[in-house]
């Protein structure tokens, strides 16, 4: 099995999986019917992407594992998602800030992944980028609305941005699988996305009358499977059925 490629795909897909799961928690509880529909839709897009990636990963593994085994039967240390996406839905400001901080990265990442020499990955990227450009438009619009809305919403959005900022730098860290895939022309060199990312984020924050956080203290570890305490609970729900009723079809 091409272990590096397999790990590389999981690294990409786990971000969508964990973020999709977080958004799925909110269905039926949004601040308005329209935002409820939009957040559910984004979750739906992300899980659709996850399925494409994991089906491909299962093929590469070449044994009898399925997309669901990969999604739901790994241990907590085996999930490679960044810390940002597992952060909880503290309130709508946190949910939108988390979404925006991920979307800006995700969009730039997929634009590069489209150029991958791996045709399956470039095809998936090509399909996903249409969805993600909508996600980015949606979340950046909400950053502006909440940032430049009322005093209360501005304070809440600034707090969320400040709180989540510490998780942004990890997006640009490279794992061993990343480095190997870059060399082969399959993977994206995420270090090269960093400057444009912070430029775009700062521009939106400025338009939203928000301060760009200045903290240079960053958290990382998710990509190596060292997560925050939040992930365990999320996985407990995600995996519940597969653990309680093993080896069954649904």
């Amino acid at each position: 099995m091409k272990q590096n490629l397999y790990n590389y795909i999981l690294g990409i897909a786990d971000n969508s999986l964990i973020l999709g799961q977080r958004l799925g928690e909110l269905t039926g509880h949004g601040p308005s019917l329209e935002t409820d529909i939009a957040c559910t839709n984004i979750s739906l897009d992300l899980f659709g992407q996850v399925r494409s990636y994991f089906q491909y990963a299962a093929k590469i593994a070449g044994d009898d594992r399925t997309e669901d085994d990969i999604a739901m039967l790994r241990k907590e240390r085996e999930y490679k998602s960044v810390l940002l996406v597992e952060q909880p839905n503290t309130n709508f400001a946190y949910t939108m800030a988390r979404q925006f901080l991920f979307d800006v990265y995700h969009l730039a990442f997929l634009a590069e992944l489209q150029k991958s020499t791996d045709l399956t990955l470039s095809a998936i990227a090509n399909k996903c980028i249409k969805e993600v450009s909508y996600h980015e438009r949606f979340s950046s619009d909400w950053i502006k609305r909440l940032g430049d809305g009322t005093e209360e919403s501005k304070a809440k959005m600034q707090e969320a941005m400040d709180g989540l900022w510490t998780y942004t730098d990890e997006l640009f860290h490279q794992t061993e699988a990343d480095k190997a895939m870059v060399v082969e022309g399959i993977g994206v060199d995420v270090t090269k996305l960093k400057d444009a990312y912070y430029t775009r984020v700062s521009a939106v924050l400025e338009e939203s009358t928000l301060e760009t956080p200045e903290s240079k203290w960053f958290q990382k570890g998710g990509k190596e499977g060292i997560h925050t305490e939040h992930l365990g609970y999320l996985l407990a729900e995600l995996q519940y059925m597969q653990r309680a009723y093993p080896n069954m079809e649904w």
Partner: protein
Amino acid sequence: MSEEQIKNLEVQFEARIARDEKIEPKDWMPEKYRKTHIRQMSQHAHSEIVGMLPEGNWITRAPSLRRKVALLAKVQDEAGHGLYLYSACETLGVSRDELYEQLHSGKAKYSSIFNYPTITWADMGAVGWLVDGAAIINQVPLCNTSYGPYARAMVRVCKEESFHQRQGFEIMMKLANGAPEQKELAQDALNRWWWPSLMMLGPTDAESIHTEQSMKWKLKRKSNDDLRQQFIDQTVPQAELIGLTIPDPDLKWNEERQSYDFGEINWDEFWQVVKGHGPMNKERMKARVGAWEEGEWVRDAAMAYAEKKQARKQKQAI
């Protein structure tokens, strides 16, 4: 307008409905027609919105990615139904905020079935199969109802509901044909959802207060008891097909009527839930009111932002 003129308009109005013409928002209509439609359509919209909760309850725990995606899409459809049913209500001059207020204060009703808990994954199958099944039986006749916006909304709603119903049945079929543990889950869900689904088609004709007028306006085309019989006759063979047992010892095919006879429905339970004392009434309202109140600052911000943007545009235009 004199009483005679109004009487005249009413006669013409009823004649139009009798000719199967559609009534549109700008047409003259009797006040009672308007009120009855707001009541029924908003009740339907509220049911869609509250109905998102028992199913949303299993999104994070769906057993496979395929099921998770299907469930997300289904709950999203329900939100969409709510949205265009509220819009249809707005054509009769009532705002969505007013309707929410009626829901949150307990003045407006929603389908009582959503006051039952979804405690296992099999409930996602049972709700789709039985609850959406009963809803379709209620709603298909409404595709020809007299009020245009409602009729058109129902065409779309029914298409999506029948997709959901097939999806629910497919979940049940998979469970019923699966491991013994899965079959147990399926049978248990059927046991719990069967009777509430029958109640969902409304009180017996003798106790139904709105039927006669609603029949005339094509808001209702068959009586509750007829709809219930139709639902039972349609569903029993489906249960047999997948090897599940309907939890009614009195259920028996009646050769003469070419229909199933069935046991006594526990109407005390029905009225208990309708009156707000079902297993989940308080939780459902708490979730709806909670989402609304917690979302207030977000809606305020969106409004303030839109106003600022508009003001900036106007300033630039001068």
